[in-house]
C-alpha cells in the first residue's frame, strides 16, 4: 500500500494541521510516512503546499515524483491547478469550493469551479458551508481532511485521539465539533467517491452533491442514484438552484420518476 497526496492551499488555511492529523494517524497505525512542507516566505497569504506520502513500505523520496500523486487535496479550488503535473492518471482531486480571492488576477466565476468539474475524477466540497453549519467556520481544513479519508487507510474514529491532543486543551466541545466536521466531510467524500466509482462524471456528481444537504448524504445510495441521473427529472434537479434537499428515498424516487 502506498498513498501519495499533494496538500494545497493558501497560507493561513491550516494545511499543516491536515498534515499533522494524517501524519499521526499513519504513525499510530504503524505505517511509514514522509511529509515535506513549506515554511517562511510562502506563509503570508501565498500558495502553500505539502507533499505527503504514506506507505506500509519504507519511503525513499520526501518529494512525490511528478505523475505519481494519488490525490490532490486542496483547501482552495484554484490551487489545485498549480500541482496537476503531480497527479497520476486515475488520481483524484478533492477540493474545497470556496475561493480565496486575494490576488488581482483571480479568474472570473465560475471558471475555477467549472475547470475542476471538468477533471476526470474530482470531488468538490462545500467546506465553508459544512464548517459554518457546525459553528466552526475556521475548520474548513478539517472538513477537507474528512472528505479525503474514504480514500485513505483510516477511519474517522482513528482521528479522535489526535484531535484530542490538538484541541483537548480548548475543551471537549471543541474536540467534538472537530470530530463532527471531519465526519461531515467524510460523508461528502464517500458519497461522491461512490458516484465516481459507478461511472458518474465529476460534473454530474458535483452538481448533485451541491443540491443535497451534506449531512444527509448516504454513500450506500450512490448505486441507485447513478442509474437515474440521466433522466429528465434528475437533469432538471441538477440544473436547479434553491434549497438543498435531503438525500433519502423520497429524493431518489422523485429523481427516478
Amino acid at each position, binding site marked *: 500500500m502506498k498513498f501519495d497526496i499533494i496538500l494545497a492551499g493558501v497560507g493561513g488555511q491550516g494545511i499543516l494541521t491536515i498534515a499533522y492529523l494524517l501524519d499521526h494517524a499513519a504513525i499510530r497505525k504503524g505505517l511509514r510516512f514522509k511529509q515535506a512542507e*513549506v515554511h517562511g*516566505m510562502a506563509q503570508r497569504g501565498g500558495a502553500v503546499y505539502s507533499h505527503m506520502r504514506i506507505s506500509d513500505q519504507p519511503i525513499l523520496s520526501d518529494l512525490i515524483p511528478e505523475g505519481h500523486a494519488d490525490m490532490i487535496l486542496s483547501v482552495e479550488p*484554484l490551487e489545485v491547478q498549480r500541482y496537476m503535473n503531480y497527479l497520476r492518471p486515475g488520481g483524484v482531486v478533492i477540493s474545497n469550493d470556496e475561493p480565496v480571492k486575494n*490576488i488581482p488576477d483571480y479568474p472570473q466565476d465560475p471558471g475555477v469551479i467549472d475547470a475542476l468539474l471538468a477533471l476526470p475524477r474530482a470531488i468538490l466540497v462545500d467546506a465553508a458551508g459544512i464548517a459554518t453549519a457546525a459553528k466552526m467556520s475556521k475548520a474548513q481544513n478539517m472538513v477537507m481532511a474528512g472528505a479525503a479519508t474514504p480514500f485513505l487507510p483510516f477511519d474517522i474514529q482513528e482521528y479522535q485521539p489526535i484531535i484530542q491532543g490538538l484541541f483537548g486543551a480548548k475543551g471537549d466541545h471543541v474536540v467534538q465539533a472537530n470530530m463532527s466536521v471531519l465526519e461531515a466531510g467524510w460523508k461528502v467524500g464517500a458519497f461522491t467517491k461512490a458516484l465516481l466509482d459507478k461511472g458518474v462524471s465529476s460534473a454530474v456528481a458535483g452538481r448533485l452533491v451541491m443540491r443535497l444537504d451534506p449531512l444527509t448524504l448516504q454513500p450506500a445510495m450512490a448505486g441507485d442514484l447513478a442509474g437515474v441521473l440521466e433522466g429528465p427529472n434528475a437533469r432538471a434537479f441538477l440544473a436547479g438552484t434553491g434549497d438543498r434537499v435531503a438525500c433519502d428515498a423520497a429524493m431518489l424516487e422523485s429523481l427516478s420518476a
Partner: protein
Amino acid sequence: MAERELLLGDEAVALGAIHAGISGAYGYPGTPSTELFEYVQGKAQEEGIHAVWSANEKVAYEEALGMSFAGRRSVISMKHVGLNVAADAFVNSGVTGVNGGLVLCVADDPGMHSSQNEQDSRFYAKFALVPCLEPADQQEAYDMTRKAYALSESLKLPVVMRLVTRLAHSRADVATREREPQKPLDPPTDFFNFTLLPTNARVMYQRLADQQPRLQELSEASEWNTLTDGPDHSRGIIVNGIAVNYLGEVYGGKVPHPVLKIGQYPVPVGKIRALLEKVDEVVVIEEGYPLIEEMIRGVSGVAGKTIRGKLDGTVPRCGEMTPSIVAKAMGLPAAESVKASMDHVPGRPPKLCPGCAHADVFAIVHEALSPWPGLKMFSDIGCYTLGFYAPHNAIHSCVDMGASISMAAGAAHAGFHPAVAAIGDSTFGHSGMTGLMTAIRDNAPMTLIILDNGTVAMTGTQKTMCTGEDLVNIVKGLGIDPDHLKVIEPHRARMAEQVKILRDEFEYRGTSVIIARRPCVQLKRKGG
C-alpha cells in the same frame, strides 16, 4: 530505548544534539534552519541547556566556540547565508581547533524557497579544511549528529552538518537511542591553540594541514560513503545527501548501476576512483553546486571517461534537485499526469498581513518621496522586503542583512539624494549598527528608517534584541544628532503629519534616523 519520534529533519538534528549531551545551542533564525534551534529551545529548561538566540550568526558561532573552549558540547544553527556572517569565526576555528565537541548545522536552500542565493555550504567546510556530514534522511540526521560530536572531539575540529530545505522541512519517524550525559566543565590548561598570533597560528595551521590525510581516511571508511554495485556497468552514478532518495525512487528502489553515495566529506577520492574503474561514464547528481563534479573533472577531465552532471547540462545548474530531474538525467521516460483543466494559473505570491505596519510606512514614505519621482528606498531583509511588490513598490534593493544602510551611505557619497534606507529591528541588531555608526561618523547625507515591529517577524516572531526604548538608546549611543532622531507610530491616518517629519529629514543633508514603531500583528495575535 529505541523510541520512534515524528521529526522534521531540523528537529532530528536537534534531538541528536540533545542526546549527544550538548550544554548550549546557539543560532540566529533563518529559513530553513529555524526549527532546529527552536526544538532545543523548547526543551532547554528541562534539559539544562543554554538556548538563547544570538544577535547574529557570528556571535552565535563565537559563543559556541567559547563553550567548546570550556570543554562542553554545543550546537549552532543558521541558514546558509548566515555562514557568510559567521565565516571569520568559523574558518579560524578550523585553525584553533575545538575542545568540547562543536557541530555547526547549516541549512542550504537550493531553489531559493526563502533566500537570496543557493550557495553550497560544503564549500565552506572544504575551505576551512574541516569534515562535513550530509544526511540523506531524518534518521541519518539524528544518527550523524550523535556521531558528529565524537568525530569533533577525536579530531579536535569543528564538524559541519549540511542540511537542505527538503530535509530540514520534511517530517518522518526517527528511532532514537540512549542519551549521553552533558560533559563537565574542562577548559584547556595550554592556551596556545586558541590564541592565533602568527607564531601560534602557523603551528596550528600546519597541524590542520597534517590532519587532512586522516580526514581523507575517515571519509574512505565512512559508513555514509557507500559504493554499491549494480548489474549494468554502462554507467555509474555519484549522488550526495537526499538526492540518493530521488535516485532510488525513480528506479523503484533498485538502481541497476553502480552507485557511490556521499554523506561525509572531504570527498572520498579512493571510492570515486573505484567507481571510475568499473564504468566508462559517470553521472554526478548533486544537490547543490557541482562540487564533486568539478573535482572529478579537474582541468582536463578523466582520460577515457565521460563525466556528466551540472557542468555539461545533463542536470540543470540552478535550482533544487527533484525526482523528475533525476529521472530525466538517467534517460527514464517522464511519467504521465492528469492535464490541468485551466490554461493559465495566476501566481499567488506571499504578501504583508492585513494590518501590517510596514504597509503604512510604505504609503507614508511613498508620499514623502513624491517630490523626487521614481525614488525608492534601499531595503534589507525581513517581511518589509515584500515592499518590492505592488501595491507598495517602495524599495529598490535587498542584498544582505545590513546592506540597506551601508548602500544608502555609499549612494549618498556618490551624490544620490535623498538616500533613504529601511531596516527591521532585528536586522538592525544583526548587522545594522556598524553601518549606521560609520554613516554617522561621516555625517553621510542619508535617512535611515528603522521598522521597529518588536519581533523577528519573517522567520516566525522570535524575540528581537533592539526594540522600544532600548533601540532609541542604541541609536543615540551610536552618536546620532538628537535633532535628527525621530520616533513615530506609523499610521496612514496621520499621513500629513508623518509625511512632513520624513520629508524634513530627507531634505536634511546629514545622517538622520526615524524609528517607525508599531508591533507586528502576528506578535499581538500570539500574545507575545
